[in-house]
């Protein structure tokens, strides 16, 4: 009983995630695609929670759903018109793209099945925020600072691209 419930939840989340991802790449309306992606990211947060990564799950919701996707939808609202879903949304290479991506997915799945089959874990998940905090400001402090520099650079870059031509000088 205790074992099957996580499996059930996983199956549910997996189906939702695959379905929503397919909507993301096939939907004619970019807006609907983005909403589906938002849902997919939420489902990924659920998977993180299932994996015992509570802090990362909350971070996923906060950063992806509450931040990135809102900016994404913002840009969609600025650059799309509601009637744009009448246009074709895929290019001419979609057959080759499907073949190629299917090949990659199959290769990966076969590899994973071969190498990582039957690895279980019995430990109970414990809260992780304290240990992640120690990790980020301890062992990982150099990448942490590097990432903050990258963020700063991207912020400056985004502001620069966002300016009008006459404002740039």
């Amino acid at each position, binding site marked *: 009983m205790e*074992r*099957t419930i996580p*499996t059930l939840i*996983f199956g549910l989340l997996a189906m939702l*995630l695959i379905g929503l*991802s*397919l909507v*993301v*790449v096939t939907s004619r309306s*970019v807006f609907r695609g983005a909403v589906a*992606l938002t849902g997919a990211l939420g489902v990924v947060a659920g*998977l993180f929670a299932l994996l015992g*990564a509570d802090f*990362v799950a909350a*971070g996923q919701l906060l*950063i*992806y759903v509450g931040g*990135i996707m809102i*900016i*994404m939808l913002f*840009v*969609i609202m600025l*650059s*799309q018109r509601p009637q744009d879903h009448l246009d074709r*949304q*895929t*290019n001419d290479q*979609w057959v080759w*793209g499907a073949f*190629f*991506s*299917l090949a*990659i*997915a199959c290769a990966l*799945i076969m590899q*994973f*099945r071969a190498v*990582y*089959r*039957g*690895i*279980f*874990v019995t*430990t109970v*998940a414990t809260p*992780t925020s304290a*240990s992640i905090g120690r*990790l980020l400001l301890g*062992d*990982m402090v150099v*990448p*942490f600072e590097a990432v903050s520099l*990258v*963020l700063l*650079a*991207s912020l400056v*870059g*985004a502001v620069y*691209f*966002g300016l009008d031509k006459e404002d740039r000088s």
Partner: protein
Amino acid sequence: MTLSLHHFLMLSAIIFGIGIYGALTRRNILGILMSIELMFNAANINLAAFNHFLYPDRVWGQGVVIFVMTLAAAEAVVGLSLVLAIYRNIKSVYTEKLNLLHG
């Protein structure tokens, strides 16, 4: 049936494949960006799964997930501001319209 590492890995492989398909075939720059986000998330699922199943007493995998998310945020912000700049100049977000270097 009990959950095992390869379930998560297979799911992430499928999502990664879908992401590649989207990135290869979408006409819309925004669609391509969204597909890339999907691929990022496939990788994140892997990282968290490896952390959970192989090293349950440590959180390095989760730390890396946080870095990936931060970098994805940076990527999205720059990418989207580029999309807006492109849209301002050529009034379109379709990739085949970006042919200024085509002569």
